[in-house]
């Protein structure tokens, strides 16, 4: 780890991942620190190999002189249908996006379904049709699949696991280690749409606002950025845990700091309002059709123009900059005139009590 304790600051120290829990709790699935600890201290420890170790969105594989990106993603979401998407489109876009932000063009997917006894066939058809449409839009095919059925009460409706292979784009070589002080941080659009759409679609918050998930393939956006070549340093899609968690993964890996400008962060008015009422922070809310890019300082405006040229990137913005210090932290310059740390998510985001 490149992060040494920084004694001048209030506890700005980080530790090696340790898994002390005796049982899996929901916190391990929230995408924050507990998920990290689980991955690093259990999965990585047991499965250790050089392809897995970078813990990127996709593993980079060379076969017969061809460079491939390979990834997999299990999808569970309640409700199965929500404004702007469903578990089917989500499962396709999730894997397509992991491949795209690895610097590759998605080629083929596989899909494995675990169906719960009692699931209406009409629902399943709707979900699979939606997968087909998402696959067409992303220009990939579902080339292999598997189906299992479990007893009622043991399946949460259905879960879909997709895996995918993509062809690495020769123009770019992305990585944490490519990021340098001075580089600019961009987001391709508004933050928190998917997470709030799903939270509200669950229907138990009694908020009368319609928010659409942003579920979409980000490959067209990623591909237009590939034109920047080496000046494109790093790409990610900020899903579970949101922008905050994804940027923390970057700062932890590269040992630098990201300084965000609160005023520059694009957040839809309805999302901001819903978050405000629930005491949530859009920086931690999931996105399913956005990417974060780190680019060389003198190409930031070019990158912004490339993103904005695409309908999905119309609200793209330059939101921050990479700084040398304080190491390993993400900071935010608040609109109010102060500053604060933007930490990694710990546990699920929960509405406040009072």
């Amino acid at each position: 780890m490149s992060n040494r304790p920084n004694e001048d600051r209030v506890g700005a120290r980080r530790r090696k991942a340790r898994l002390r829990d005796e049982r899996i709790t929901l916190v391990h699935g929230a995408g924050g620190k507990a998920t990290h600890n689980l991955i690093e201290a259990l999965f990585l420890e047991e499965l250790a190999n050089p392809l897995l170790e970078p813990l990127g969105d996709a593993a980079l594989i060379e076969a017969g002189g061809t460079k491939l990106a390979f990834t997999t993603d299990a999808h569970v979401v309640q409700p199965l249908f929500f404004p702007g998407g469903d578990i089917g489109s989500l499962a396709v876009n999730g894997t397509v996006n992991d491949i795209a932000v690895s610097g590759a063009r998605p080629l083929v997917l596989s899909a494995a379904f675990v169906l719960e006894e009692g699931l209406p066939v009409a629902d399943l058809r709707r979900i699979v049709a939606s997968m087909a449409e998402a696959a067409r839009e992303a220009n990939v095919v579902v080339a292999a699949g598997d189906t299992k059925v479990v007893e009622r009460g043991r399946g949460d409706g259905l879960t879909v696991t997709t895996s995918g292979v993509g062809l690495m784009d020769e123009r770019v070589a992305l990585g944490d280690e490519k990021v340098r002080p001075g580089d600019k941080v961009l987001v391709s659009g508004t933050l928190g749409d998917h997470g709030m759409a799903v939270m509200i679609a669950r229907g138990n918050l009694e908020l009368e606002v319609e928010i659409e998930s942003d579920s979409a393939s980000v490959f067209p956006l990623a591909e237009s950025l590939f034109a920047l070549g080496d000046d494109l340093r790093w790409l990610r899609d900020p899903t579970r845990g949101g922008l905050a968690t994804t940027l923390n993964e970057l700062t932890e890996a590269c040992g630098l700091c990201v300084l965000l400008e609160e005023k520059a962060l694009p957040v839809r008015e309805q999302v901001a309002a819903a978050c405000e009422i629930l005491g949530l922070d859009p920086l931690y809310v999931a996105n399913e059709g956005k990417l974060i890019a780190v680019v060389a300082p003198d190409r930031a405006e070019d990158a912004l123009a490339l993103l904005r040229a695409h309908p999905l990137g119309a609200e793209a913005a330059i939101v921050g900059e990479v700084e040398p210090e304080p190491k390993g932290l993400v900071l935010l310059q608040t609109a109010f005139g102060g500053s604060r740390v933007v930490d990694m998510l710990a546990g699920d985001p929960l509405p406040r009590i009072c």
Partner: protein
Amino acid sequence: MRYVDEFRSGELARALAAELVETMPPGRELALMEVCGGHTHAIYKHGIDELLPAGLELVHGPGCPVCVIPVGRVDDAVSLALEPNVIFTTFGDMMRVPGSKGSLLDARSRGADVRMVYSPLDALELARANPEREVIFFAIGFETTAPSTAVTVLQARAQGIENFTIFCNHVTIVPPLKAILDAPELRLDGLIAPGHVSTVIGSHPYDFIASEYGRPVVVAGFEPLDILQSVLMLVRQLAAGRAEVENQYTRVVREQGNPRALEAIEQTMELRESFEWRGLGSIPKSGLRLREEFAVWDAEHRYNVPGVSVPDHKACQCGQVLRGLVKPWECKVFGTACTPESPIGTCMVSSEGACAAYYHYGRNRPKRA
């Protein structure tokens, strides 16, 4: 966003900060306590502390409903959750608070049916929908949340729902303030009073702080400009040698509070002889329980609740943090053994806890004595 951005203007903040510098009584060091954890979080989330003049310190208070629940009550909750046939409902924050034998989340991973709800009425609805199960609601909080518990109990009675009980841990705000003002080891110059509690109780309950203790009080809202303005109002009083109760949060807080909410509390709850607080010990007449006539809906009446007082983890200094004696980062386990994902004390768990505020937002701050 309308009605929010107006209260977060950086321009107005700079103007207030400049006025604050002008108003500071020369040569004096001032310590103001923000009683409410919601204020603590707003302060660090927006970086308000960085706009304060030298010589002005904010001390964090005990107004965090999750933080003040002692280990013993968490153990009671876990024990209730493990009762057969029970659906145990709680606000989300409470799930991760460690008891001496694990948290409610741990109980859930061992098979207890623990569910997060957003309101006690959701818990009542759960009871209505599951007549064959027993639903318990873990009621916590100051006078802010007590009225919603009270209304829920009244509705349970009106609807004749009897498979529903309340594990009542409601507390009142004035006794811990007295305890803190009486403590010899802390010198406070003024108090930023909690806005949400005051919507219910009004501003008169703080009068004794001005009249008996000679300290100014300002009831404050939760937006950053509210807090900064309240600090300025306190400093103005101190500079002029005044000690009064002022209300900055006039758009929400009425002097007399919310009489209907108070009436609902009064109708359903009564003060316990004594209630144990984390860090503050047992304080007489500080906690609420359901009145005898509502015993049917009282979990402590219906079940065997261990009710054992359990000391804090020996490394945990939440008690001192809650009394404003120790800054979160001065605690020996802050950020090492105690983190939000594996907390030792409540102050690191709650979204209103001072340790969580520092951990999430304040780790870029230079250490101050």
